[in-house]
């Protein structure tokens, strides 16, 4: 589904990702872990097409298309979804109208007619249950005055409504208490299907107790330095990231 080859990217002239390689197949959940500043969020933003980041090398194929050549909105319409680490507030625009506009953009792309208000509400009502929110949530302005947990749940609600083929969850677990974490994880699990895929970007192993990954990768200093099964997450939790640092230092030729 997604094939990242030798991807290098940076922001404001600073290189952050260095030749990242990653294969994601339909039905898989990949966890990308790593210490702060390792480039996890950059990877998420670059895949979603944030214009502040510059790709300096490599390529990304997504469902046979050159993902990096597509503008952000085209990626979204093609089924790429980013759950933001810091969801953005939009004053005066209700959650419902925002979501409605997004759904209709997607439907237009797929050649479906727009949903009318009743059909839209029907769809959203059902998805609201997934994240344990009620309808009043819809009439509030997008993320304005939301608690941290509400913002994250709102991201998952949007994901549930838009049903992306490929979702990147950027530290969706950070700042959540255990109850909110369970709600979010449960929402994500219900959205797992054989024909979609998820990259979970996280600092902690905690969320992986609830969303079981097929693969775990460690991103360190802009490179994927280790890939393994879910047991790697437990090892990281136990040993921290320092042993990775030592391992990397031992295997890297100096001056690379």
């Amino acid at each position, binding site marked *: 589904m997604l094939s990242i080859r030798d991807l290098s990217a940076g922001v404001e002239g600073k290189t952050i990702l260095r030749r990242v390689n990653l294969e994601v197949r339909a039905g898989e959940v990949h966890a990308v872990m790593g210490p702060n500043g390792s480039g996890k969020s950059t990877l998420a933003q670059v895949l979603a097409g944030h214009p502040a980041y510059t790709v300096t090398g490599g390529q990304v194929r997504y469902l046979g298309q050159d993902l990096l050549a597509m503008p952000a909105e085209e990626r979204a319409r093609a089924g790429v979804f980013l759950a933001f680490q810091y969801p953005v507030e939009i004053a005066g625009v209700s959650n419902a109208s925002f979501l*409605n506009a997004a759904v209709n953009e997607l439907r237009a792309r797929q050649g479906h007619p727009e949903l009318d208000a009743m059909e839209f509400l029907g769809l959203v009502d059902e998805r609201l249950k997934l994240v344990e929110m009620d309808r009043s949530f819809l*009439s509030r302005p997008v993320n304005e005055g939301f608690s941290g947990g509400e913002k994250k749940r709102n991201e998952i609600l949007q994901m549930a409504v838009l049903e992306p083929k490929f979702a990147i969850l950027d530290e969706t677990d950070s700042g959540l208490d255990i109850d909110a974490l369970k709600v979010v994880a449960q929402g994500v699990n219900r959205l797992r299907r054989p024909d979609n895929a998820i990259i979970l970007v996280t600092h902690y192993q905690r969320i992986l107790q609830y969303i079981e990954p097929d693969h775990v990768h460690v991103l360190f200093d802009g490179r994927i330095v280790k890939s393994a099964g879910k047991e790697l997450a437990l090892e990281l939790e136990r040993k921290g990231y320092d042993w990775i640092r030592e391992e990397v230092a031992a295997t890297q030729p100096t001056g690379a």
Partner: protein
Amino acid sequence: MPTTMSTTAKTLESLANREYKWGFVSDIEADTLQPGLDEDVIRLISAKKQEPEFMLEWRLRAYRHWVNMERTAGAPKWANVKHPPIDYQQIVYYSAPKRASEGPASLDQVDPRLLETFEKLGIPLAEQKRLAGVAVDAVFDSVSVATTFKEKLAELGIIFCSFSEAVQSHPDLVQKYLGSVVPYTDNFYATLNSAVFSDGSFCYIPKGVRCPMELSTYFRINTAGSGQFERTLIVAEEGSYVSYLEGCTAPRRDENQLHAAVVELIAQEGAQIKYSTVQNWYAGDAEGRGGIFNFVTKRGKCAGRGARISWTQVETGSAITWKYPSVILQGDDSVGEFYSVALTANRQQADTGTKMIHIGTNTRSTIISKGISAGRGNNTYRGLVKILPRAHHARNYTQCDSLLLGDRCGAHTFPYIEVGNASSVAEHEASTSKISDEQLFYCKQRGLSGDNAVSMIINGFCKEVFKNLPMEFAVEATKLLGVSLEGSIG
């Protein structure tokens, strides 16, 4: 970053270069005076309108006052706008489409090309096509050409007609209220208007009557070189209610044209007047050539206890907008409201706001102002909240928000607050913001195009004002801002 900027820039450009689809000229034979202003011109206007003596005298008093003003202080210079001096001798003060017979025309006497013009503007006047639930007074250059639903309204005792007709048929009411809120000495442009005003609308809602439909006036400037000086007077008697709408357009021309109107509202005890404007005069081109100078005085008086006046304005047109719809809160417990969206794109300038004058006790006022600047537009909010010593327990809430699109535009806020007693409360909140790259990216990541994202964000910014507009107008207003109305849900 560069990509976002270019999309924003593109979006803003399309917003700024919104095609002005009302810029056509109608080829209609007109009875037009030579440019220039003196006492003879005023006598001629008055004679053409067959006005009673009191009107001519009032005009002449205003004119002499204005001549004096022009000789001494001249036009007001405090506004944050720039334009070359206006040559008042180059303006045509009266231009009316010719018609077969004089006197109030019935619809079948109206030149079909006039009806066509209004139909093209989306204001059908013919009986079978009229807008449901809205009575329209259509003003073309200096005169009212038709007023719809007049008879139906008359059954309730409501008078809705052109100002000229009111002067003929209800001189007592006109004499009683004309200049009672905006005296002819009020300010340079209001004084000029008092001398030369040619037409406008008159509404009178009798005691206890709730006007069953929206009343509206549609102003159209057509003749080149002409100024438009209309006057609107609305009187709401005890316990009555009226909602009034005003729309305006003009042809696209390279010369500036002056529009100096006066609107007076009187709300007696327990009466309510809701006055909404969607102002879309030609704004000039991207280089600032042409466009209307919109120098307007609007004021309402809550004369009785518990009266209520609300101004809602969406100002998207005009090269320069200079207007301060105000409320004099004379009656105890009266309420004044001002909701405003002002958009300045290209080289448009707006200096707009309100005055809330609290005289009665327990009077309340609310001011919500949203300024949007794009291109090289310059947007100024100027407001006065004045609470007099005997206006005990008066309350005001003011919120002024500015949204900047791009980095060559300007936003300014000049709030004046004078509180004369200790039991009153005045609150003022202000903010200036930009559409952030993060907001745009967030919207795009959900599949919205850059244009739609900007529209949605602007629409959200204006929401508190739009929700005060009648439905048809809200739709019009959102369209004018190049935005699509938010879904009916939420």
